[in-house]
């Protein structure tokens, strides 16, 4: 019954923690609200913003549905928005977020240029972290079997074959192949890695080609080394498989790296190494993403100033050094460790930023729902790709992108 004691202790800690909330340099008097996704990095960032007072954070898994309407309302329901490179597109297109060059000049001199997202000379967002999918592998298993760290997908396949033969883990490979965003991104990564183009000049789709077929065939080859339930596995599932020692390799998000070394959850502490994403014929099969803050257009300049100041307080070095391994931060004060090595190597090898745009949103969506049919074996590669293109055409016409 030790937990009684720990309950009381925890209670005391909570009191202490709330007593020390003056970590913010000033007291905010304007009401500021934010709407963002709900993952860990946003949680710690918004907690740090809340230290300034008068701040309410909404960490919502439905933020994509709510953000465009909420920011279009006049006055905007939220002052700060948390976005990634792709979820910024609808806000930017509707111009419901404001350029922030003047605010940066006033309150953001400490920001590095690498944190600023600018289009045509105007700055629209401040990034706090980057993220990319890259290879993680069990160094102990690969070492025991005398396998060199894989650099290309051919290497990955060869290594998987050896691991499967040795039978040391349940499945050699893991993957985020859940239909929708997850598997869509996998296709995008490999397709870009092989130097493919998604669109023709008139925005009609251009994926039904040799590169597309090659990517699907690669996925088919990878599948034989994966869990048969691969089509329900998302990042959390793969992370858990790693932690329980069920898989030896996977292409997984950099923000998941920290979880491998959490003692309370993981049985493979210190055994997972972060490496560059496997190289395609042109560049690494991965895309670079960022997450950051934007500010509503429909609010007074005073509110904007207050919101910007609050956001800067949240994204400061103090918050980052307290949560160093939670993400690959862009904020000053971040010390990249071994866990960030994979993201760093992926970027150094020439991975491109995710090509976020209106048409890419549609493309990712139709890929996410179309590719699984090939993986299950319901369709062959050419049919899969041409069906995806047809679905894209319908959606793009509905949106008004093509005639």
């Amino acid at each position, binding site marked *: 019954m030790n937990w009684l004691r720990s309950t009381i202790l925890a209670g005391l800690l909570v009191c202490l923690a709330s007593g020390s909330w003056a970590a913010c340099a000033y007291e905010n008097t304007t009401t500021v609200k934010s709407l963002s996704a709900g993952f860990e990095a946003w949680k710690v960032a918004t907690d740090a913003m809340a230290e300034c007072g008068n701040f309410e954070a909404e960490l919502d898994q439905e933020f*994509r549905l709510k953000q*465009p309407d909420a920011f279009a309302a006049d006055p905007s329901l939220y002052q700060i928005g948390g976005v990634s490179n*792709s*979820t910024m*597109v*609808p806000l*930017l*297109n*509707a*111009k419901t977020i404001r350029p922030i060059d003047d605010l940066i000049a006033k309150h953001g001199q400490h920001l590095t*240029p*690498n*944190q*600023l*997202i*600018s*289009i*045509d*000379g105007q700055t629209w967002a401040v990034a706090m972290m*980057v993220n*990319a999918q890259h290879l993680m592998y069990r160094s102990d298993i690969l070492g025991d079997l005398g396998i060199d760290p894989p650099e290309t997908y051919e290497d990955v396949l060869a290594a998987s074959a050896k691991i499967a033969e040795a039978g040391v883990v349940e499945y050699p490979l893991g993957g985020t192949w*859940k*239909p*929708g*965003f997850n598997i869509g991104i996998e296709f995008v990564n490999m397709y870009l890695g092989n130097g493919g183009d998604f669109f023709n000049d008139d*925005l009609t789709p251009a994926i039904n080609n040799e590169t597309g077929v090659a990517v699907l065939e690669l996925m088919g080859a990878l599948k034989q080394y994966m*869990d*048969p*339930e691969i*089509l*329900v596995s998302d990042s959390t*599932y793969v992370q858990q498989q790693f932690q329980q020692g*069920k898989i030896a390799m996977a292409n997984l998000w950099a923000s998941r790296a920290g979880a491998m070394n959490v003692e309370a959850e993981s049985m493979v502490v210190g055994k997972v190494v972060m490496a560059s994403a496997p190289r395609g014929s042109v560049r690494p099969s991965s895309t*670079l993403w*960022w997450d950051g803050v934007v500010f509503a*257009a429909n609010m007074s300049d005073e509110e904007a100033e207050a919101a910007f100041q609050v956001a800067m307080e949240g994204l400061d070095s103090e918050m980052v050094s307290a949560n160093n391994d939670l993400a690959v931060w862009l904020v000053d004060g971040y010390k990249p460790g071994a866990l960030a090595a994979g993201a*760093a190597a*992926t*970027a150094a090898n020439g991975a491109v*930023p995710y090509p*976020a*745009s*209106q*048409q*890419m*949103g*549609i493309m*990712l969506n139709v890929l996410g*729902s179309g590719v*699984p049919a090939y*993986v*299950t074996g*319901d369709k062959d590669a050419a049919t899969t790709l041409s*069906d995806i293109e047809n679905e894209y055409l*319908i*959606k793009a016409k*509905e*949106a*008004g*992108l093509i005639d």
Partner: protein
Amino acid sequence: MKFRTFAAFVGPSMFLMLLFIAAPLISVFSQSFYVDQSVFETVEVEVCTPGFLTQTCEIEQRTQPLLDEDGKQIVNTEFVGWTSYRNVLRLGDAWEALSDLNWSSFQQIEFWKALRFTLTFTLITLPLAIGLGLLLAITVNNVTKALKGQIIFISLLPFIITPVIGALSIRWLFIGDGIMTAFLEWWLQRDIAMFAQAWTIELLMLFYRVWHVGPFAFVVFYAGLQTVNNDTLESAIIDGASRFERLRYVIIPHLMPLIVFVALIHLMDTYRVFEEIVGFSSQAHVISLQWLTYDFLTPDEAGNRSVSRASASAMLTMVGIVILLIPLLRKTWNDHRRAH
């Protein structure tokens, strides 16, 4: 009852239903015939985004919507007639696949795939849920009084539990090396992956749905059994009716209105099956009609949604339910006419 008094009684309820259901219904109906399109232009701009260590700046062709003087997106609402319905139904492709007798390519068309699952799911769970409910009601009714309360309590659990949580709890039992899968593997001495193919997932979904709604049927039927006329039963016994005959000729007819009621509710709810698809993440293998609608409505990363097709698919779902309900509705109409 005078019409004015009647109106006063049903007024508040009607008002709520008209405002929150009928009005959206009308707007959904009209939206299914229109599409909202933005007008796009392509401009060449310099875009700078964060890299890992350095900023990357590129000249890029950016597609962006045109804005009017007020800074709002220019949106053209265009009447498209039945186009959205056509895009959902894809009758041409469906007909082609059917006339080739090619069932699998017919099942690659999302709407028909969803319809196939929704219909089989509805029609298979209906007798199972009602059967389970009946069987439970009759057995529990004969249990000694001391245990009745506890058994009813346990039986009601699957019905009251929050559906999202119920589905997840069953999912955990079977996903990966969940303990039920481990148990089945040990029992059948073979490798089993319940989430790897369509039919096992469907089986799990059927199981979950019957587990979830069986108790509702049970409690309704159980209540009905409390009002069985004992005189009728006794005279049946005196006439030498066997146990089965008593069930067939006295109890079932007595419960018939309740069976119709449960069937009605069940058909409507099951035809809108949705939680199972999300809870068991079965999108790769099976989808349902409401999930299809939901999928059209969910914006992609760049905020595009197919509102028009979602509306069309919602209207089609409604039409489907009404068709399923026609026999039951006719019965209600006849009862109504006879009663007055």
